[in-house]
């Protein structure tokens, strides 16, 4: 392990990480880990046909965690002068004089460290001048505003950023990578009979060539907004519900929280002790692919330097594993799954049906296209959120719906997934198509 380096980056920053580790050792740490994150980027917003904001991003942060006999201390600084970095190490060491011994704390085990360098296609800079970014944003907003029903706009934004991450620890591991992320979004407003509606659309990718076009994003934003005009409440009832792909993602995010180590060892999860049990309907298979080329959550190693690997998390509805970093793994008497920092491209295997086919299969029910609020209890799985969407009869959209809630218990909701769409939305670390839930409670009039 000694001296191993997964370098794809500037040596100056790796040297600074090494300086932290050496300094920690000098100040009495038994073990230490340090990371540097550099963020560079450009964002512009255009509104009503002209540039509104132009922002240049240029941020950085150095974090260090030290252990002295299983006592932990951590600190961070944005000041990279050596004297300030040394002070940060001292601050972390001071803290460890007061924290208490925790046998589970410490670095990930040395044999878990990543050893292979792979090009995951994450670094795709966009040579974009501010003027060009403004032009794209204006083109995007213009195509939305070209719709007659669009009366106002929150604007269109172009974001382009590149983050550099360097991580090292006292096992001798040091690794780094750079990853770009670009996006284009548009939000517009339509008005009818004195009532306004707003909706949006966005595209995001590591690679600018894989973004949707400015006109496509603008068109989608306008169409999604206009179809919300005339929204009304519906009666309180139990009904089938389709979560459009972007919203289905949030259901899976609640699953991810529930099978993450932190929630499990704290007993703060509605899926305690569910390993090898059926947690979803048998239609659901979830895989994690950390090495997906250009994936938004792809990475060779996690936040502890642990090698990531592909796996099946849920097979035919049955939970195959948890989402663990080394600390929570030790608390649970298990092994880290390389998920310190989160899940890597969790993918729900798509079905055969388009969203239209899901609707016609449902015949009568609710299509949810936006959720608001935080009404999810991670301990019990109780779920109650504000929703916007469409009422479906005879398999077709009848009218837009608003000011309602959808409620149930997540354990139950997961089992009641009776159809899975083919319309995969890959704009996140969680990649999923639309889902049809057999029955939920809708509260309205």
């Amino acid at each position, binding site marked *: 392990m000694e001296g191993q380096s997964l370098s794809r980056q500037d040596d100056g920053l790796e040297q600074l990480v090494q300086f932290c580790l050496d300094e920690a050792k000098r100040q009495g740490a038994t073990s230490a880990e340090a990371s540097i994150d550099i963020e560079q980027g450009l964002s512009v917003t255009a509104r009503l046909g002209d540039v509104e*904001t132009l922002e240049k991003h240029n941020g950085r942060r150095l974090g260090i965690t030290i252990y002295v006999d299983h006592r*932990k201390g951590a600190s961070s600084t944005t000041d990279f002068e050596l004297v300030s970095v040394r002070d940060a190490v001292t601050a972390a060491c001071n803290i460890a004089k*007061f924290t208490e011994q925790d046998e589970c704390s410490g670095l990930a085990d040395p044999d878990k460290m990543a050893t292979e360098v792979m090009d995951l296609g994450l670094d795709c800079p966009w040579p974009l001048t501010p003027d060009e970014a403004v032009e794209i944003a204006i083109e995007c907003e213009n195509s939305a505003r070209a719709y007659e029903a669009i009366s106002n706009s929150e604007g269109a934004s172009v974001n382009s950023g590149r983050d550099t991450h360097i991580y090292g620890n006292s096992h001798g591991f040091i690794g780094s990578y750079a990853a770009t992320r670009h996006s284009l979004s548009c939000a517009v407003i339509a008005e009818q009979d004195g009532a*306004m509606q707003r909706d949006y659309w966005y595209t995001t990718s590591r690679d600018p060539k894989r973004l949707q076009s400015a006109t496509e994003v603008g068109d989608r934003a306008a169409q999604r907004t206009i179809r919300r005009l005339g929204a009304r409440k519906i009666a309180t009832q139990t009904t089938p519900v389709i979560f459009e792909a972007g919203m289905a993602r949030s259901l899976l995010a609640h699953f991810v929280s529930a099978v993450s180590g932190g929630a499990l060892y704290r*007993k703060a999860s509605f899926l305690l002790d569910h390993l090898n049990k059926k947690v979803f309907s048998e239609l659901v298979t979830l895989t994690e692919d950390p090495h997906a080329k250009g994936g938004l959550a792809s990475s060779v190693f996690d936040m502890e330097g642990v090698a990531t690997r592909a796996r099946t998390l849920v097979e035919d509805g049955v939970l195959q594993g948890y989402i663990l970093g080394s600390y929570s793994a030790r608390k649970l008497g298990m092994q880290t799954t390389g998920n310190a920092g989160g899940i890597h491209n969790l993918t729900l295997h798509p079905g055969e049906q388009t969203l239209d086919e899901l609707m016609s299969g449902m015949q009568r029910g609710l299509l949810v296209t936006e959720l608001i609020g935080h009404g999810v209890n991670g301990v019990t799985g109780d779920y109650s959120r504000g929703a916007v969407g469409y009422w479906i009869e005879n398999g077709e959209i009848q009218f837009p719906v608003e000011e309602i*809630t959808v409620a149930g218990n997540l354990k139950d909701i997961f089992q009641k997934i009776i159809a899975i769409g083919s319309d995969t939305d890959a704009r996140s670390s969680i990649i999923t198509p639309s889902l049809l839930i057999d029955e939920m409670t809708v509260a309205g*009039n």
Partner: protein
Amino acid sequence: MENSLELAQETILTPSGLDENHLMDAFSVLLDSAADSGDIYFQLRKHEAWSLEDGIVKDASHNISQGVGIRAIKVEKSGFAYSDEIVLPALLESCKAARAIARGGQGGSVQSWKLSTGNQLYPAQNPLDTISEEDKVDLLRQLDSQARKQDSRVKQVMLSLAGSHEMILVANSDGQLAADIRPLVRLYVSVIAEHKGRLEQGSAGGGGRVGYDFFNEEDRGPSYVREAVRMALLNLEAVDAPAGTMNVVLGPGWPGVLLHEAVGHGLEGDFTYKGTSVFSGRIGERVASKGITVVDDGTLENRRGSLNIDDEGTASQYNVLIEDGILKGFMQDRLSAKLSKTAPTGNGRRESFAHLPMPRMTNTYMLAGEHDPQEILESVDTGFYAVNFGGGQVDITSGKFVFSASEAYLIEKGKVTRPVKGATLIGDGPDVLTKVSMIGNDLKLDDGVGTCGKEGQSVPVGVGQPTLRVDGLTVGGTAS
């Protein structure tokens, strides 16, 4: 204030070899285009967090962030750049990047500085040093043991103690120079209780712009623990919440998140200027029942949402938003005020030097009415009584908002009966306050743990209200 300014200059500028003349040089660069105004915002923030779980203080961190954010404004356009390095070359570089928003035109400059004054609402102290590290650890351990002693059903106790010491210095192209030193502390307790295989959680906390001693005074720390345990145990008994539209009684204090979501965000000056808020252009109209007065008040002493000056150097104010049911005013930062041809209201806030300021709330609350809270409950035949809430969210364009109850009961024949599980309540912002039929005499502010998010930026805020009866809100439970 003057002391704060001197201290901020000595702490932020002097070590970097900067002084007021360098700021003038920076403005000469920033305004050397058609930019009509601009500001330079220095920030130094020290933050720490201590956490306990499984009976031990296992985690703590100390974080320092510092930097300078620079903005150039040309009518409605803003150019923005920032740097973590507070040195002259980086400062001038950021000025050049920010001014790219405006082109050509005459160069401007700042000739002299005038000091703006603000309020004096909290001590210019570093709260991190107000008690020793040993005492921080002791405080957490004592509270942990108290929680476990309170009831054997308590299975997990998580405590966090956090403090920050923030120093800001802001200079603008009108020659105004202002500084603020802001302490902020927070203690939060979360417990999980288990009974007959059922797990439930409860949480509580508090804080403000004070030192850590705050938690040892007036039994505050122990009271948060008792509250968190009480709530977890109560939830063990809770039945499914009802679904449908019904009469709702909201308790005093934190349920004021209703105001924050239902009207607060929609009255922020950037939205109202752009016409994207459902409240745009409605000043002078009735938006609430008679008797309802809602204010945003940045001037409360030691409150989490209070500010001596906002992040643009404007002194915080007591702003009446709704008076006796009539919409009176919006919350403005300098830019939204200028575009709306009105005055800034001390609501220009930003998460950090790396973010652009925008109009944000401070402490938003409704003034007390005349009804006894008991009388309000007794007036409801069948309904929903919500006394505590988690967060909320609003669509400012359609006006629809939600907020989620974390402690609630059924009202049956004027009596509070069974506890029910948490549920989201949904309503229409411009409409909901017109459905308030009774206002309690028991105005209470929240305990000081609120954080508001807008466009990706988080800032500390406060809310408050008296007990309210709302005739017809949709409750999003599961029981028919």
